[in-house]
């Protein structure tokens, strides 16, 4: 059984203050938080101690923990430009230190993106991503934060097989995998994807999408077969957190609670707070 339903603060960015987001996530019955380390909630380019202290205090008050940290969309480990890869590394290292300040276990790392019209050769891009991820793992080693490589529909390393290949190239003792079912749906059967990454899986992201229009929609608003995915997650013996990473146009709190209930209705089981069914 998954360890817990956690919720991402993603949907609160540019909508509510981070402390409000954490309160609402706790009220919606989640035990943990994945913190999106992006402005205006978190400024990674400055001193992150004040943001971390405020987030820790909000979590203590709400009775939740931060288990993972993700970053915004600018970073690009697959860039042909060495200056951009260097910026991306600095960005991830700052996010990793921020994760450590919060006591989080995981830092979510994306491969980046390729140019839509004139992409760099695949093998070059793969080598840049592996090099970057290795450097992030090195930097995080003493922080107690584990990088988890996430499948992202970016035309580079976006299938489960490719993610496994990247992680094994670095070492499964240093990097894990975050499997995002909506991202997976854009390129493969996410049930197959989950089975493929099972041995390395440390985080699962859930949201809904259609194959035609990539989204992180509320559970049940797209084409995701969450009953089938629940059976797969049970079958592979997954015991890590399940992060609800949905975007809600209206009030996120009730929306996240509805996502959790929809997942439970579809057969997903995880430990939740007892007082908030």
């Amino acid at each position: 059984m998954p360890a817990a339903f956690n919720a991402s603060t993603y949907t609160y960015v540019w909508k509510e203050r981070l402390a409000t987001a954490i309160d609402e996530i706790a009220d919606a019955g989640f035990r943990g938080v994945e913190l999106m380390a992006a402005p205006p909630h978190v400024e990674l380019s400055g001193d992150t101690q004040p943001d971390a202290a405020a987030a820790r205090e909000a979590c203590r008050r709400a009775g939740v923990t931060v288990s993972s940290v993700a970053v915004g969309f600018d970073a690009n480990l697959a860039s042909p430009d060495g200056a951009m890869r260097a910026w991306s590394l600095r960005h991830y290292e700052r996010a990793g230190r921020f994760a450590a300040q919060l006591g989080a276990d995981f830092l979510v790392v994306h491969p980046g993106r390729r140019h839509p019209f004139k992409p760099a050769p695949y093998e070059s891009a793969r080598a840049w991503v592996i090099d970057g991820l290795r450097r992030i793992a090195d930097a995080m080693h003493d922080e107690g934060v584990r990088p988890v490589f996430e499948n992202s529909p970016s035309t580079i390393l976006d299938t489960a097989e490719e993610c496994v290949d990247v992680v094994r190239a670095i070492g499964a003792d240093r990097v894990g995998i975050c499997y995002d079912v909506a991202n997976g749906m854009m390129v493969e059967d996410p049930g197959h994807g989950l089975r493929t990454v099972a041995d390395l899986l440390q985080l699962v992201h859930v949201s809904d999408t259609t194959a035609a229009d990539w989204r992180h929609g509320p559970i049940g608003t797209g084409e995701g077969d969450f009953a089938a995915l629940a059976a797969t997650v049970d079958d592979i013996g997954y015991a890590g957190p399940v992060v609800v990473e949905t975007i809600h146009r209206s009030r996120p709190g009730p929306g996240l609670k509805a996502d959790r209930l929809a997942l439970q209705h579809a057969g997903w089981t995880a430990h939740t707070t007892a007082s908030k069914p």
Partner: protein
Amino acid sequence: MNGSHPKASAGTTASPRAFTPSSYSYLWRSDLPSAFEEMASTGFEETEIMAALPHIDLWDRSAELAGEIRRASQRTGLRISGLNPPGLDINISSADASMREWSVEMYIAIGRLAAEVDARYLVVHPGRVPVLIRAPGDIAREWVIAALSQIARSLESTGLKVLFENTPTDLLDSGDECLDVVRHIGAGNLGLVYDVANGFMVEDPNDGLRAVAERLEVVHVSDTTRIRWRHDPVGTGEVDFRALAATVTDIGFDGDVVLETVHPGEISEGLDRDRTMLQAAGWNG
């Protein structure tokens, strides 16, 4: 190029100055000097350099770049009209202040390189907007204006023009919005590039061209479909180049027409075919 504003009034006989190929297609296909030789031998007099890896490597090879480009230009006779950094990474509308700062530094560095190789302009894009969660449009617009102002100010002494380009990013991507940004900043070295394929994704590009006419310095041409944004060879998509030729003539545009097409096959033949197709559609150059 007509540097005064407004541009020639409607109904004049002004016509585009020249067809200029972008070096876009040559990225990851051949080195830049070889690309220069091929474009020159295809009968072009200038090129707009796509300032991207592996051709333009400011990280590892900044010291020797300008000299290499100047030598290739002198050997082939192909002059450089402008430099155009790609939108893959640079992002002056990022919510992250350090990304905006890095992007401005990159634009200024590429602008200085452009001045060193005697180019006339630097192209600047508004950046990229996240698909799932984005900053409010008015805040992102202020970031773009601040960055563009800084780039224009930093490059003022070089004599280079800084040209803001419409890009289908859901942020400042219509002709009206681009003109509004340039007017708002008011810098004398700021102008506009109008990309017809980019415009096609968000508006009637004829309307876009008319909207930006007073500050229009360069037109980028390539073909695309509404469903899938492309920079394909002229005549392979849904863009009506005959109607656009009439519009360009009508607004009195007398700047460069840049062939910003990506050719998967033989590049020189493809660029020559683009030029022929445009001429058949009524474009002068």
